[in-house]
């Protein structure tokens, strides 16, 4: 680790000032701290957001669930409102990484980092959630822009994520055994307007699958998902899986997610 200065602002206004002056925001640190230890990342100044009260809290209002950016995975997994209104999201949070990761990692950190194999972005995108920042509100469809890239500007912080509550939803993943990240994860969410399907781990970043969405909007059944041909073209291949295997997993996990959503 290279030397750096550390500050822990108590208000969002102070946090924004620090970040505007060049400080790197530190949420749960599950990616940033590890890369700093490996000297792959060398921020000169850290602004630890854990003391900012405005960034915490989970509340349900009508058909919307709003989760503060600094909510730890463990808090989301255990929150009574999330479990009752959006159990698929609670389940996802409860199955990220391991116990240590869930105790520290945050939803805002995960979404802002946009790791191509992270779990949360698939829920955010499949739900058509809104990312609320210190500057504006961004629709999930506009937010995720591929490998570690998002619509966030320099100095812009996520304050909360607002999820419309789906009629039915489920998340299924198959873990890469070493990292415990999903090799492929599929989040399926059914709304009155139709079904949204977001895939993580399989491509350059989280993406929606039009073919599956179309088929499932017509018939929300595993068989309907099974009838969709999954093209391998844009998927990624690495040490752990070929494009063909990832394409297979998208199909299989979608069918399983639909079955799980149907109960």
């Amino acid at each position, binding site marked *: *680790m*290279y*030397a750096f200065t550390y500050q822990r602002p108590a208000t969002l206004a102070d946090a924004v000032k620090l970040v505007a002056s060049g400080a790197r925001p530190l949420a749960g640190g599950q990616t940033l701290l590890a890369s700093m230890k*490996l*000297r792959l990342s060398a921020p000169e100044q850290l602004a630890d957001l854990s003391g900012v009260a405005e960034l915490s809290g989970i509340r349900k209002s009508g058909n919307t669930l709003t989760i503060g950016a600094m909510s730890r995975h463990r808090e989301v997994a255990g929150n009574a409102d999330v479990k009752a209104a959006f159990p698929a999201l609670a389940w996802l949070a409860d199955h990220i990484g391991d116990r240590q990761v869930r105790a520290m990692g945050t939803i805002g950190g995960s979404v802002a980092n946009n790791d191509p194999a992270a779990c949360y972005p698939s829920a955010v995108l499949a739900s058509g959630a809104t990312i609320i920042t210190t500057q504006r509100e961004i629709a999930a469809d506009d937010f995720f822009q591929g490998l570690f890239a998002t619509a966030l500007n320099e100095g812009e912080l996520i304050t909360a994520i607002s999820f419309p509550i789906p009629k039915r939803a489920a998340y299924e993943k*198959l873990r*890469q*055994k*070493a*990292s415990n990240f999903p*090799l492929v994860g599929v989040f399926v969410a059914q709304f009155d307007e139709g079904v949204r399907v977001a895939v993580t781990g399989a491509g350059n970043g989280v993406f929606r699958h039009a073919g599956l969405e179309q088929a499932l909007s017509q018939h929300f059944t595993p068989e309907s998902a099974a009838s969709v041909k999954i093209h391998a073209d844009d998927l990624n291949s690495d*040490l*752990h*899986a*070929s494009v*063909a*295997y990832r394409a*297979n*997993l998208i199909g*299989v996990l979608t069918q399983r997610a639909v079955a799980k959503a149907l109960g």
Partner: protein
Amino acid sequence: MSATSFSQLPHIGEALRRKEDYRFLTGAGQYTDDVTLAHQAHAVFLRSPHAHALIKSIDLAAASKMPGVVGIFTGKDIDGKMGGLPCGWLINNPDGSPMKEPPHPILAIGKVRHVGDHVAIVVAETVEQARNAAEAIVVDYETLPALVSVADAAKKRGGVVIHEQAPDNQCYKWTIGDKAAVDAAFASAAHVTSIDLINNRLIPNAIEPRAAIASYNRASDEYTLYVANQNPHVERLLMTAFVLNLPEHKVRVIAPDVGGGFGSKIFLYAEDVALTWASKQLNRNIKWTADRAESFLSDAHGRDHVSHAQMAMDANGKFLALRVHSDVNLGAYLSTFSTAVPTILYATLLAGQYATPQIHVEVDAWFTNTTPVDAYRGAGRPEATYLLERLVSRCAWELNIGQDEIRKRNFINSFPYQTPVALQYDTGDFHACMDKARVLADVDGFAQRRAESQAQGKLRGIGYSSYIEACGIAPSNVAGALGARAGLFECGQVRVHPTGSVTVFTGSHSHGQGHETTFAQVVAARLGIPVENVDVVHGDTGRVPFGMGTYGSRSISVGGAAIMKALDKIEIKAKKIAAHLMETSDADVEFVNGEFIVKGTDKKIPFAQIALTAYVPHNYPLDKLEPGLEETAFYDPTNFTFPGGTYICEVEIDRQTGEVRIDRFTAVDDFGTLINPLIVEGQVLGGLVQGLGQALMENCVYDDQTGQLLTGSFMDYAMPRAADFPMFTLDTVCTPCTHNPLGTKGCGEAGAIGSPPALINAVLDALGPLGVKDFDMPASPHRVWEAMQRQS
């Protein structure tokens, strides 16, 4: 004392909790990194980013001026001042010429040969300062093409010469067995089964990384090296005699608590030498602890064989002859015992549990631009077992005989048994292990379970593995004749204190094995004293007279036997003291349950009183006997020990995802006499998950062209987790070893040796109906799915 009477003593077979666990579980363990010496500096090693490159120049100007830098050394500084790392085992080619033994410099001289090769040692006041300075060193490399896989090495494609001493990159060819007899048997065989397989390369990953602190004392001209190591005396001998040319008595090596070795901490590593040497050059205590990335790149790796094997059988599936060829990867340099692993410790085990009359094995060993490969839990024996047990199950499938049946038809039934590949098994009962395992695994219910899996769209398979291993290495003279450059005895010293408590000094080393408990049980049982009155000291050349250390499951059978010999001497002397006190002759004194008794009388004296008398010799035969009660013994075994067993694995495979779930796993082992069954169970479980880790997920992968390690962290190198396994069903059979005084055989590696083929045979049994015949480890979902796709 006979092994039979020993096994009936109190405390033998008692499942005592481990004495050492209190300090480990309460954070009081003292590992090398916990040791802090006054005024210590910290070292960081600059490592090669290239697999193969010439070093054109190294510019230290900027680095030397960095804050906190104490000193920086490169290959230029050590060239001519010390030897290279020695190889401890000489292998000869069939024509009698010796293996190629190129230099293994402590710091690279002119050339780097694998990613992670050591280029410079940087010593600074803090670790971060040393890192900063290492980053400021400018090395001008001229990269060379790399030779990475053993398969490519064996093809002898020109262009890459790793060492000028080995222009075709071959270290040696080695053969064992009667080729003409094997060829003749194959010519008359009713059926021949062939197999090609890869034993995947592994990275050891002990929880505690390698670490060392070197200290030099100007007043006495003595060095002290604390190091995470499995055999401190061997470390000292190799370093002083072969590399630094120092008098051995001027170096003390201490291996305190060590957090796992698995073989990777047997070897003398360049870092240990560089630190020791630099501590005098800089007159500073210097600490180095590997970070995990360094461990991946610099701990000796394991396995990495490509093999072809054939079994000749008669019409009834009786084995007539076995023919094996293996290409083995030694990595860029010869690590300490690297040359013995794929030869002596591998091919001699290829008879397995079977009475195959003729066996011929040919091994070609290759240098590649990868991290050196050496002993890793099992060391050669897992490779032998994997090959043989995969082949045997394939024979069964081809002949349409049960996997259990073909094994039973070929088991060795009488002992001692001389194999055609040098070893002589002293004892065993292979049928008993198989029969017990079949019952515990409920083999009879398998067909029903398979049908239930099928009904859920899943595949189910059962796999067998009947392994044997040679442990307790070995008679020194036999090992010497086979090329060993060291002895393989063990030393034990028993010091009885005046109040009757005992300190045992053993040359064995515990890095997780629980010796402090097991050895204390042996001593307590023999002397009839409480286990808590016995302390075990190990891992310090300054306290233990000598030691060959712990590897090859040798501690109880060799180290324990040395302690038994010392106890024999204690008993003989104590009897003389007792005879004097009770005014009788030595021959009339018996030692039973901690008391010396005059035969046929009620006269007796407890052990503690003899101990006190030995140190307060007022009423004592001083004219015939020295005071004191302390004895040292060296024990050199007359043979290996031969643990064996049968493992049965049952898996269920998800057809859609290729996920393999171990549904049940049964292990029945014959370790001879058990001292502490709780510790044995722990050893077996650890071995099983290590072996199943290899079979299910662990895999070291290099980029074939660049030689970069692609699985260089836990993000890509999968280690097994508890949730990956069911509860294991374990049991034992006991045929005591016939040639050591404890009847023990050793249990440290069995699980890692026997389990991989059991799992892969189960996978193949499940996939068989789809037409899958070949499968190489690991059985990760992706690879299993691809195997299914290839067939459909």
